[in-house]
């Protein structure tokens, strides 16, 4: 499988702490990649580097364009990664625009296209046909994702008033409205009940199969990881300790040690 993104010897230091320590990995195109690892392994830091919130201390993050050229994302400013590289993410602690309705949230995600259509508010102020069409299209895209994620009923409800599991879905719908090429989900199953968790699995698979998206997600819920991912990367202490198909990773002794702790550590505890 060809990679969409290559992370190359990435290092992220905060003061004296090295959160990511020479990490290299590839995100295969059109597949679902899971990143797992104990708390503090550097998973979310990796996301923050990937989506431009942190500027890495060293290393490169390469995006492989469709025409075969490469682009180093560490040089792009934060908001331009979503805009130009079309890498969009969700957050571990949901970040919706709580006072705004679900539909509004989804329209904010299409800010670029709409702003261009509104000629930086000028055409919008004049209410030109061109802008009206762009707005209709934006609402149509939102409507499609709302329908696909079963959120149509909540379209006009303030996002902050929805139950937790629904908010998670709204955040994914919002990210999808930004037309991502790579969708990064930070613990999408956290706090979901079993039914919602099953729906999530179906959704992730559908996004890959029906929409051809590349997905990268951080998850602690092993049933989700093992069921849907094509490729699993295991991190610990800022490094990659294993990678491969879920079955192989599950049996990897290094991984088992990272999760269950060292034998002698256990002995020391006892």
């Amino acid at each position, binding site marked *: 499988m060809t990679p969409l993104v290559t992370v190359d010897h990435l290092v992220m230091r905060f003061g004296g702490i090295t959160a990511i320590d020479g990490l290299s990995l590839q995100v295969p195109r059109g597949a679902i990649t899971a990143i797992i690892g104990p708390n503090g392994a550097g998973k979310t830091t990796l996301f923050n580097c990937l989506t431009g919130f942190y500027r890495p201390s060293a290393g490169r993050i390469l995006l492989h364009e469709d025409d075969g050229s490469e682009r180093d994302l560490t040089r792009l400013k934060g908001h331009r990664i*979503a805009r130009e590289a079309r890498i969009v993410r969700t957050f571990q602690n949901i970040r919706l625009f709580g006072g705004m309705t679900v539909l*509004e949230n989804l329209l904010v995600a299409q800010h670029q296209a709409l702003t261009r259509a509104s000629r930086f508010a000028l055409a919008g102020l004049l209410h030109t046909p061109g802008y009206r069409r762009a707005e209709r299209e934006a609402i149509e895209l939102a409507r499609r994702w709302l329908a696909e994620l079963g959120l149509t009923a909540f379209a006009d409800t303030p996002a902050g008033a929805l139950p937790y599991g629904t908010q998670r879905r709204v955040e994914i719908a919002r990210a999808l409205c930004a037309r991502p090429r790579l969708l990064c989900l930070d613990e999408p199953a956290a706090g979901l009940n079993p039914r919602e968790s099953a729906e999530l699995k179906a959704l992730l698979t559908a996004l890959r199969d029906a929409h051809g998206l590349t997905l990268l997600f951080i998850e602690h819920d092993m049933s989700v990881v093992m069921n849907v991912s094509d490729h699993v990367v295991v991190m610990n202490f800022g490094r990659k300790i294993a990678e491969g198909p879920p079955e192989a990773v599950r049996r990897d002794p290094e991984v088992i040690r990272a999760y269950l702790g060292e034998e002698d550590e256990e002995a020391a505890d006892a």
Partner: protein
Amino acid sequence: MTAAALAAPSPLALRLRDALAVTLLGGLLALPFIGLVTVEEGGALAVRTRWSAWAMTLAAIFFGRLALRAALDAWHTRRPARKRAAFSSTDAVLRRAAGTSLLAAALLLPVFFGDNRYVIDTATTLGIYVMLGWGLNVVVGLAGLLDLGYVAFYAVGAYTYALLSTQFGWSFWEALPAAGALAALFGILLGYPVLRLRGDYLAIVTLGFGEIIRVVLLNWTSFSGGPNGIGGIPRPSFFGLPFARSAEGQTFHEFFGLEFSPMHRLIFLYYLIVTLALLTHALVSRLRVLPTGRAWEALREDEIACKSLGINTTTVKLSAFATGAMLAGFAGVFFAARQGFISPESFTFAESATILAIVVLGGMGSQLGVVLAAAVLVVLPEVGRQFADYRMLVFGAAMVTIMAVRPMGLLARREPTVRLNPARSSAP
């Protein structure tokens, strides 16, 4: 179980104890300022006591606290965990009705009070504050940026018109766009270094900027006339017809064959500010439902999420800041034209604070709320001198209280900018 819990005091005793504690603290705080006062006597300061005022303060604190506690307790027991209501359509209808009747009242006011100079003057002042409130609402209410030096842009507008008209003979309508553009430019120049940083920095830098503009206007005498200000600013004319008893060309009353009345100009000024305010309202309401306005609100809700969706937050902040500055610039032009004379005294921090209070009390983001709050803040000081003295004190206290009780302001009920199902109100 502890002994204290066994001998549980009655709610009344608890409340009394609480009120006593608060009174004790409040009394201590008030002692050096209300109980004692330094006054000048024969060239030196002396201390006078005001025990009665202090005692009254103590009593007010004690009973106020008791009443507050009782009210709060009643509120908590009566209110069953109310869920945050979805946007109801009846609410919107009520709002529209209130808006329409206010508009009608504004338009008809000179018909009923056309000969009452005081009413028209006060209403014009109110119009200025409404316009300023709507302008600042873009910055604070929609984009969630705290601008504490809003009056600086108002000053930029006023001085631009004053200078352009007295030095270069520009007319009101020629100077209006120029002043708006210049104020917006100032907004961008000031905002650019600061808006990349956290919100608090913006607040203090705008606070400083408001003061600096005033200092510059006070001291740069050759430019701004210093403390003497600029006088003889031409009044706007009615499409070229001056409001004078007699002039070189035709005057307003001659053209329309009316008896000359000084009220004509005042009524014209009143309609002018109503028009400017309505244009402001139209602009802001329209911007709110455009991508720009939605991005402002999204920014207020969560800046990090905005970045993750590819929104350049600096640009969005700058656009809000510049829009607000431009509107203040327009209002400044009107102010200068109305007064005919301006000086740095009109552009103090107290003005910025008043405008901010209007936005905060009105419910940040609510256009109707701004009108009501401006009405309260402008009309009440007219009612009694007593209130005028305590005006800022009350504003300050009200800002603290409202933030604690209803951070989104008294009237804030947000109307969505777009609905998927416009026909039915959404009840999930």
